[in-house]
């Protein structure tokens, strides 16, 4: 049965289309009458026999779809076809008006075929038809839909005309969609069906409302995550209530969707990213430090300059003071006055309080490198004649050895050398070691 209906359905569609093309109005009237009879039992039939329903429902829907398809061919302007679209969608929206509206469409079609004056007139005519048939309610609805649906579509039309593309229509046969949905939908009534049966959560609000711009990846993904998170929370609560296991125990191992290999790669990439980030941060820090170090240096120079200025000012001030007061009052000697001892004292007194305490007296500790160099090369004192002999060095006889003098090997005389005595003078290393022994 299934096979039969499956193969049948496309055929049925095409057949009906061709019929609609051949004899439009007559066919439609027939359809309408049939439609009336077929309308009520659809829901009951659904359960009883799928095949029958397939036929009846397809017959139901086809004329409408065809009606829409035909129109743009007869009248070119897209606005017009959207207008008629609206009519037909009205008809499909509420069952009671279905019959009347299709007639209206027929009328409008014939109108447009006869004289393609303009949209306004045609709309008026259809409106008249409606009002003749059934009151004002229809008109209101039409206007509402006008505002809702037409604006974006008109823009689309313009775009598409500008692009020179085929005008794609919006077919939105709500009734047919709903019947089709009813035919195959699962029962998900929360009162009778457990959640674990379908595990479907429909969020309470529209996700699109919380997305300011679809182009903004971050905002968009955040909105999606929030939607999913809400669903996950809700789902977990419901599943737990129903006693369905939710959390995977830690000792439950099974094949995963993504292989271990992939996950290894993902992890490696994560680590790599983290290290790269860390290195970048480090480098940035170093750069900042460098920049900051320079600032510090400048600051220090300024500070030093300031200190110097202050000191000079103080000295001048003191000198003035002393000049006015007279040196005798302070009880200083002539020599003191000459070398400005008082000024020095003053400066030291003020400076000692400011400066940090240095170990030792004034000089402070030299750093290790300096100390080593001082030990090696000497520091301070007179450099001149430091290697020339003086009374002390000539008085020092510690290097004298009588044996050596007698042995003759060492500085035996110029004559010996001349005779060609080899190795009268030992090699440098030996000499050194001998010197060390001494």
């Amino acid at each position: 049965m299934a096979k039969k209906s499956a193969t049948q359905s496309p055929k049925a569609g095409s057949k009906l289309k061709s019929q609609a093309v051949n004899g439009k109005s007559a066919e439609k009237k027939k359809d309408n009458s049939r439609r009336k009879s077929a309308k009520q039992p659809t829901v009951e039939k659904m359960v009883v026999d799928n095949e029958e329903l397939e036929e009846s429902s397809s017959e139901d829907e086809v004329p409408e779809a065809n009606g829409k398809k035909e129109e743009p061919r007869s009248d070119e302007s897209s606005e017009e076809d959207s207008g008629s679209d609206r009519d037909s969608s009205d008809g499909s929206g509420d069952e009671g008006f279905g019959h009347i509206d299709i007639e209206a469409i027929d009328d409008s079609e014939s109108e447009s075929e006869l004289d393609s004056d303009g949209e306004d007139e045609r709309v008026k005519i259809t409106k008249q038809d409606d009002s003749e048939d059934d009151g004002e309610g229809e008109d209101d609805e039409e206007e509402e839909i006008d505002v809702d649906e037409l604006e974006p579509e008109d823009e689309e039309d313009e775009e598409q005309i500008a692009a020179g593309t085929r005008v794609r229509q919006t077919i939105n046969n709500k009734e047919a969609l709903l019947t089709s949905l009813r035919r195959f939908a699962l029962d998900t009534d929360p009162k009778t069906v457990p959640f674990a049966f379908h595990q479907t959560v429909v969020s309470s609000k529209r996700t699109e409302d919380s997305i300011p711009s679809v182009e903004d990846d971050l905002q968009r993904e955040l909105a999606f995550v929030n939607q999913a998170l809400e669903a996950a929370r809700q789902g977990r609560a419901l599943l737990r209530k129903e006693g369905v296991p939710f959390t995977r125990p830690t000792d439950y191992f099974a094949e995963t969707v993504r292989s271990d290999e992939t996950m290894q790669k993902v992890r490696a990439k994560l680590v790599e990213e983290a290290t790269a980030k860390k290195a970048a941060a480090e480098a940035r820090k170093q750069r900042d430090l460098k920049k900051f170090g320079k600032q510090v240096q400048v600051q220090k120079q300024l500070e030093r300059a300031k200190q110097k200025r202050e000191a000079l000012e103080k000295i001048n001030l003191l000198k003035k003071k002393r000049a006015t007061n007279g040196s005798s009052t302070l009880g200083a000697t002539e020599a003191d006055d000459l070398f400005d001892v008082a000024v020095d004292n003053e400066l030291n007194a003020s400076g000692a309080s400011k400066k940090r305490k240095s170990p030792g007296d004034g000089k402070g500790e030299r750093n290790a490198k300096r100390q080593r160099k001082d030990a090696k090369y000497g520091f301070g004192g007179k450099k001149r004649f430091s290697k020339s002999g003086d009374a002390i060095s000539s008085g020092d006889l510690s290097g004298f050895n009588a044996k050596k003098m007698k042995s003759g090997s060492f500085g035996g005389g110029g004559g010996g050398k001349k005779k060609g005595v080899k190795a009268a003078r030992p090699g440098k290393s030996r000499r050194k070691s001998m010197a060390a022994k001494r």
Partner: protein
Amino acid sequence: MAAVYKSLSKSSSKEDKETESNGAVERKNKQRVLILSSRGVTYRHRHLLNDLAAMLPHGRKDAKFDSKSKLYQLNELAELYNCNNVLFFEARKGKDLYMWFSKVPNGPTVKFFAQNLHTMEELHFQGNCLKGSRPILSFDGAFESEPYLRLIKEVFMQTFGVPQGARKSKPFIDHVLSFSVADGKIWVRNYEIREVERAKGETGNDDGDEQQEKKSSKSGHKGGKDTDINLIEIGPRFVLTPIVIQEGAFGGPIIYENKRFISPNKIRAELRRAKAGRHVARMEQQREALARRKQLGLEDGKMKKDPAGLDTRDLFA
């Protein structure tokens, strides 16, 4: 007379049975999905197909389907494999992917254009989940607003939702499949549910949830009573633009068509034309300039001779 009585009693007993079954919640959600592609898919499409197949333990992956025009043959194929859903990847021009979701044998069929594909292999997804665990399907609120979206939701529910007690399904739930509507398109995402220790400062944040959890823990569930949920994306992700809904399975009347969908071919052609337009405009400009010069008598190389006869050769002839 007897026959009439028999039929009557039968029908009544049938009804009784139905009500009983309703009461006893003996429900069977039997779904099988035939997953296959047309020829000419790229590696990306193929990987996406594999990912989806891995997520659907009730799926049956089949070899590439050879035809792009006779799609109704898929009905027979699905019947051959006892499938009542078909997920068909149709690749065009080696770059565009159209996805068909169909309920076989009675329809409906929904055709989507798929964009922005990212497969699970991609390294920026860090989540993972059990193969064949049943997902929680999360639908945007917008899916309840329009009939065509409701229909699409139902199709997704039956295709992507792993039925309870499916053959290769795992007993725990560790991922969410989310469908959102934005910009007239349907965005599909797949997240891992990772339960993490709830931070102590967070308790005031969502009391309702906490209470629910407390209740559930009272009802005898250990483990994760004090956990919060984190979502980590697993992939794949893709965006679907609905194009057409047909009433039958790969056939039948069209009951929905999306006008806002513009075929990728059109877009590409438009781009090309725009590019060509620049060249055309330049050539036009050149031609005009040439014409103007001609009008002024400034045609290059052919300066008009001096009419007064002041040429040296004339003067000193």
